[in-house]
């Protein structure tokens, strides 16, 4: 215990003993061969300092300045990418641009025991326009060697009263990071902490002064202007957050968006309080956010328009019997009529009318058209705000928390979700990108509430094999695979573009242990039915003979053989997107000259808290062996603390399905 405290003291001593002034790179830093806590890293942030503060000019009022100083150690060539810096900033001609200036940037190396530095040349910072709104400043440091240190400082000036997320964690470790945020008392921000690592922080108040200069011509006797100035004193709320030795982010399978787990602090402007003026509140609750979005003309306003589809809707109404039929008709009509241009967005871009006419639109356009048409047809339909998987899980109520719209049909409890941007999507079977967190439904009467997006219904694959063993030790038979809901959506999305030949090739490749004689896929385009893939097969490779015993895998050529979870530990949750089930029903007919020596015992495995289950039943009757296997995950997301259990569950399951049926020739 003592040792540990001593060690900790030493660390903090070392951390503070460093000279973090720009250019004061030490010999020790340059000589360091590897990162002390993890010799495997390619680069590390030795020091990062960020200061964000508000400055005042009389002409522009407050604006936000962020100064960043970074010192990065590059241990080896794999780390060279860290010598290229990209700074993204907002540039909009209408609402004001941000500005970025790189004040200084140097590479430090050790040459013959002496520290040498190389400046980034003038003109070494390049500007790249990403799109209408965003630009990047990019520079690559010169004269890199293994072991060098690069260091730079830059400043971002923004007319927007927002504070960018404070990131404390990166894909490389950080030795010391410190941030100082200074906010005038007039601006009130909400803070939200994200991630698994602890940081230390302190808060205090300091004073600030604004000097206002007045030009006065009121003096009668003078011809020139008189300048007078007055000072306004105000309080500045300061927050300092720091961390020594922040570990790097990890890469793991089944993680939807690593930003959900990155240690960081998010800021949201909640209100502005000028003296002697009413407090101006910004969106504070999700209900508030929803109202703001609805009030926007590119959302609520577009939703009200209906003249453009009137005629088409009349035709649809004529031919429909009941309400469900009408919903399906309108849903299919919009899918056909307006194709997705690939852009997400809460708001319409060119507007619903243009999208409708041109036949392409962004997400808001497509699904607001669908909502409006359904409503006009007398069906209860409301837009549902969504944050896609790549957008992450919002931490507090802001408009930016959402980036996507789907449609909710029906009343409380019985809401069915639709998304017309995906050709193969059906009611309540949404594209994978939307299966994230929860959605916010906004009703016509301006009320709003949460709706679950992660479906309860399992994405389902069901395999059925009926096989016959013949005297030549060949197995032949039929396989029928049924893909339902999200499994069907995925199948159609990835395979419907393939020709018959190509599909057959894919099937050949998928099942290398069998010879596929015939393959047929039913309901490829009939999206309200499951996809059914049928094969006729024969194979000589499914039996193994050892000392006269014949061994057969119960699932023949199906079922996994390797555990997808190989690493010992897990940091982030396992995210499947939705619950899922895979079932196998196999029957193997054995000829009379064989006798069954043994079959695997039936078994049932269950994970804690009903997270998942596995069932295997094997029976033999009148020369036919029947196998039933069912594997289910009942939740779309499994917490990392359950990783060991999941891994062991897979291990036991795999062991079981790879047990053999043993036969003997008589």
């Amino acid at each position, binding site marked *: 215990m003592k040792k540990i405290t001593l060690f900790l003291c030493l660390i903090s001593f070392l951390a503070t003993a460093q000279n973090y002034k720009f250019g004061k790179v030490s010999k020790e830093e340059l000589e360091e061969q590897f990162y002390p806590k*993890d*010799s*495997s*890293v390619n680069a590390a942030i030795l020091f990062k300092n960020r200061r964000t503060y508000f400055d005042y000019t009389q002409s522009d009022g407050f604006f936000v300045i962020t100064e960043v100083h970074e010192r990065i150690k590059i241990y*080896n*060539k*794999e780390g*060279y990418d860290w010598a*290229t810096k990209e700074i993204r900033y907002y540039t909009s001609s209408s609402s004001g641009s941000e500005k970025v200036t790189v004040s200084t940037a140097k590479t430090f190396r050790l040459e013959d025991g002496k520290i040498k530095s190389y400046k980034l040349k003038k003109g*070494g910072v*390049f500007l*790249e326009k990403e799109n209408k709104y965003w630009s990047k400043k990019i520079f*690559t440091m*010169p*004269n*890199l*060697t*293994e072991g060098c240190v690069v260091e730079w400082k830059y400043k971002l000036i923004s007319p927007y009263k927002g504070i960018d997320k404070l990131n404390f964690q990166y894909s490389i470790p950080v030795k010391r990071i410190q941030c100082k945020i200074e906010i005038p008392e007039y601006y009130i921000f909400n803070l939200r902490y994200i991630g698994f690592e602890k940081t230390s922080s302190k808060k205090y108040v300091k004073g600030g002064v604004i000097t206002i200069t007045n030009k006065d011509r009121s003096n009668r006797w003078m011809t020139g202007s008189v300048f007078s100035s007055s000072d306004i004193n105000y309080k500045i709320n300061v927050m300092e957050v720091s961390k020594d030795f922040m570990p790097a982010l990890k890469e793991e399978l089944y993680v939807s968006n690593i930003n959900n787990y990155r240690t960081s602090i998010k800021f949201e402007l909640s209100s502005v309080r000028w003296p002697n003026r009413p407090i101006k509140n910004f969106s504070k609750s999700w209900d508030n956010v929803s109202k703001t979005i609805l009030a926007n003309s590119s959302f609520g306003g577009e939703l009200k328009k209906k003249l453009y589809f009137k005629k088409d809707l009349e035709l649809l109404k004529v031919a429909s019997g009941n309400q469900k039929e009408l919903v399906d008709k309108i849903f299919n009509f919009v899918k056909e009529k307006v*194709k*997705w*241009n*690939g852009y997400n967005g809460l708001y319409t871009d060119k507007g619903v009318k243009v999208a409708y006419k041109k*036949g*392409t639109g962004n997400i808001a356009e497509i699904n607001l058209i669908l909502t409006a048409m359904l409503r006009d047809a007398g069906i209860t339909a409301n837009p549902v705000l969504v944050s896609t998987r790549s957008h992450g899980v919002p931490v507090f109520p802001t408009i930016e928390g959402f980036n996507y719209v789907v449609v909710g049909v029906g009343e409380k409890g019985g809401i069915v979700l639709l998304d017309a941007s995906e050709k193969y999507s059906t009611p309540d079977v949404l594209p994978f990108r939307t299966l994230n967190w929860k959605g916010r439904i906004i009703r016509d009467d301006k009320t709003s509430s949460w709706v679950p997006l992660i479906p309860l219904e399992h994405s389902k694959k069901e395999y059925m094999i009926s096989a016959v063993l013949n005297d030549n030790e060949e197995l032949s038979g039929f396989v029928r695979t049924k893909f339902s809901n999200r499994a069907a959506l995925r199948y159609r999305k990835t395979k419907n*573009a393939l*020709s018959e*030949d*190509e599909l*057959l090739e894919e099937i*050949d*490749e998928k099942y*290398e242990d069998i010879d596929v004689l015939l393959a047929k896929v039913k309901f490829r385009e009939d999206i309200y039915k499951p996809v059914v893939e049928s094969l006729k097969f024969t194979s000589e*490779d499914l039996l*193994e003979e*050892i*000392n006269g015993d014949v061994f057969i895998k119960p699932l023949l050529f199906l079922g996994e*053989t*390797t*555990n997808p979870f*190989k*690493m*010992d530990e897990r940091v982030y949750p396992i995210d499947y997107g939705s619950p899922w089930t895979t079932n196998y029903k196999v029957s193997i007919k054995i000829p009379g000259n064989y006798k069954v020596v*043994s079959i695997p015992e039936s078994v049932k495995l269950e994970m804690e808290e009903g997270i998942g289950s596995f069932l295997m039943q094997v029976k033999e009757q009148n020369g036919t062996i029947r196998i039933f296997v069912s594997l289910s995950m009942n939740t779309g997301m499994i917490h990392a603390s359950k990783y060991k259990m999941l891994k062991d569950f897979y*291990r036991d399951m*795999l*062991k079981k399905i*790879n*047990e*053999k049926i*043993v036969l003997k020739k008589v």
Partner: protein
Amino acid sequence: MRKYHLLFIVFWILLEGNAQTSYAFDSIPSSLLKHANAIVRNASISIEVLALDKMKIKVKKIVTIKNELGDMHSSVVVHYGRNTKIKSIKTIIYDRNGLEIKKVKSKDYKDVSAVSGGTLYGDSRIQYYTYIPVDYPYTIYYEYELQTSNTALIPNWYPVSYMNTSVEYSSYSVQNFIGGAFKHLNKNFENFTITSDITATGVSCSLQDFSAIKEEELSGGIKNKVPSMLVHLESFSAYGTKGSFSNWNEFGEWMNASILTDNSNLSKHTISEVLALTSGIENERERARLVYEYMQGKMRYISVQVGIGGIQPEKVMTVDRLAYGDCKGLCVYTKKLLELVNVPAHYVVVQAGRNIEGFEKDFPSVEQGNHIILNLPLDKEDVWLECTNMNMPFGFLGDFTDDRNVIVVTKEGGEIKKTPTYKTANNVQLTIAEVFLSATGSVKGNVEITSTGIQYDQHFHLEMYDQERLQKHYKENYWDYINNLTLGAVTLENDKKNVVFKEGLSFEIGGYLQSMDDKVFFDVNVFNKFTRVPKKYRERIYNFEKQRGWRDEETIKIEIPNSYSLVSVPKEVEISNEFGLYSMSLEKVSEKVFLYKRIFQLNKGVYSKEKYKHYRKFIKQVIKYDQSKLVLTTRKI
């Protein structure tokens, strides 16, 4: 009323006119739809050589994209730079009916540097536009015109540049208005519908109704399967200087005279470092090795795509100062370092890639070759250096540039030489292990993998991995078929001098043994199971080739616990055929100790397509025998 009718008719005609040029998907002959993800409807390249240093290139292409797998055709990419200017560019997108859906505006094109990550090639730029499809099929139409002073690089004709792409019509013409000899070379014109017209001043040819071909394993690249035409002016201008050549020797002379003209020098600092490093070392090869490793320690490679940055290397001085470069820059830099210590080195043009391709022996042109390496004509041997890989052993090329004809540029001109072949017998991976079975069902022990020859190339990059990534590599990649694998620390030994890479591991595999009643099964090939069945082709079209042979050998000592007794060992196997050989045996050394030996070798060779199913069968046999089991029992025998 009538007026309206008339207007309607006019409008209708216009509409029809718009859709006319038969860009409609339905107008594609069905024979061209099979295996096609995209169909080139009409393409043309027309080139006019107006002066020795003035050439106009007009490109037009109309491609219908059938599905998302054809989306690589949805981009227009135009390279330009100091010597090449874009005169005009136009892109239009049509829907499945051939109706226009988007006319691309000039601001929609992106203009970026052709190379990211460095400023060396600031003048090589790309203008590009990528259409994001909303529905399939659609058609992209584009045309652009370039003017260049570089007549050494006449674009060649590759009417089919992708698999799964059909061509309805594609034409090519080169008109030489300045006289002078003019060479062309047709490749694979047989078996295709091609017209060609060759005159003294030009060539023109066209391809019609080419049905898409699909990828086949082991059949090499697309180049050997489709027609192409190479064109070259004997006298030309390149980068502001005139030149001419009519054979590879003269090509080399021209390279020396016009391209490799840089006479800038290394910095004093570099010179003194290198001289100090090699002082007193008599052996030429040793000096070369030290210099090569010096370069590797100092330089960084930035990749430059083929055709970008021209063929002129960066100045030695600049490379020295910036400490980075592309293959050309790094080669001239290394060459300069070598000359400084009196080691001769030649600049070598090579067509690099895993797929082995050579040069046209009788048709010299600047367009051939995509990479530069060095050749060191030492006393006893030719040494070849790859200067873009900072970890490669001295003199090792790997599968990127091995076994092919290259153009070596010497003082006397160009010379065709062949890079070293890695022979099957030397491309060995040796796995030696000790495995202890435990009565609990787990196995543990240690294993050592030694790789040489071309197999070294597949392993030595591990040296750059950290322990965590190594663990990931073995668990999720190299031994992904093993469940419940626990590894101790991995030790790696890279003997660069002899090009031998060794991996040493200790391991434990939980639940490896399968038991059934009183029987226990042990899968003997723990460490090198072959698992990949060659792809099945219902009808194979091309012959197949193994460009490199290799051999894997395993020797595993197996020790079983006292509580187990032997039931049976797998039958010995020995298969030998033209594709290779496979042998496997399990020998009982003592009651509790067994020795497993396996050899699997695949030969280098070219085989007829009819033999593919035999080859596939052989591999399937190997896979099957790799599942062989030692059967034990817990019963007392």
